[in-house]
């Protein structure tokens, strides 16, 4: 069964034969043969919808997620520092890339947390594994971003602060 809501998204019931486990094709092109639309209730089929939901997710993160706010503050601080120190354009782009990576991982982390909360209400070991591993992905991205920032910010900052440090 499939039907329209408004003229935006198409709603479709999940396959009724739930009890029969479907046969999986384990070859390389087996995954390609699976049509996700036959399992989805709703999907976005135009660019406007996709952009709208992406913006909605961004707003949600900015209002609800504390770590995104921290990253935004840190990014503003690093931006101000790099403008003050007049670092190279290439160095600035690399710092920007590392912060983009951090932001992406934080977003994916929130998405995984939401999926876990959606799937189960109980306390389950695999829920812990999923949430912890997603959190450590953000730790890895934080380490990468800090090292990249340190490589490019620390030497010019030291040069800038040298007269103040060497005064006594």
């Amino acid at each position: 069964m499939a039907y329209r809501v408004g003229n935006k998204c198409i709603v479709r019931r999940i396959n009724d034969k739930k009890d029969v486990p479907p046969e999986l094709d384990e070859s390389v092109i087996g995954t390609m043969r699976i049509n996700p639309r036959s399992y989805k209730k709703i999907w976005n089929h135009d660019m406007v919808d996709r952009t709208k939901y992406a913006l909605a997710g961004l707003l949600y993160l900015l209002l609800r997620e504390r770590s995104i706010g921290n990253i935004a503050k840190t990014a503003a601080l690093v931006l101000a520092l790099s403008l003050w120190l007049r670092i190279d354009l290439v160095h600035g782009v690399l710092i920007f890339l590392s912060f983009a990576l951090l932001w992406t991982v934080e977003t994916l982390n929130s998405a995984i947390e939401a999926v876990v909360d959606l799937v189960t209400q109980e306390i389950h070991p695999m829920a812990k594994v999923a949430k912890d591993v997603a959190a450590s992905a953000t730790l890895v991205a934080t380490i990468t971003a800090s090292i990249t920032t340190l490589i490019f910010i620390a030497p010019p900052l030291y040069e800038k602060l040298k007269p103040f440090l060497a005064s006594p």
Partner: protein
Amino acid sequence: MTKNDQPDEKQQGENNHDIDDSVLGTARIDPNEFRSTSANPDRLSSFKYSVAGMIYMFRHEQSIRALTLVTLFILMLLLWLDIGNVDAALVLLSLGIVWMGEFINSAVEAVVDLATDEVHPLAKVAKDVAASAVMLGTFIMLLVAVLILTPPLLDKLGI
């Protein structure tokens, strides 16, 4: 794909949550209403859980051990050949992408295993697509590493 244009109110009523479909609708949802556990109280406990996840990965994931070896090898190469800051940062960033992909992949796998015990095509799609994200990241990392490290390595070896 048959598209039936007639809306069926009865089936729509099966969903008991009213979803606000505007751009601000998502931000109005309070995640704590749906959680079984409360959100992390402070930054220290967030950090604790991310370290716990990392220890889990080192304990249970084969690919992380291989990735650690590759990372140590590349880091030693970076230190041995004194290459520029920008080149080192590029290699580090691409390594970071692979690590991040590996962790997200494991998280997705855990979510899928949590969600269902059955054999399901969508579970296969989720796991395969997450795995191919890691593969793409690995290819790009290898490409970046080879492009950046080969010239100084050849110089150092005197070839």
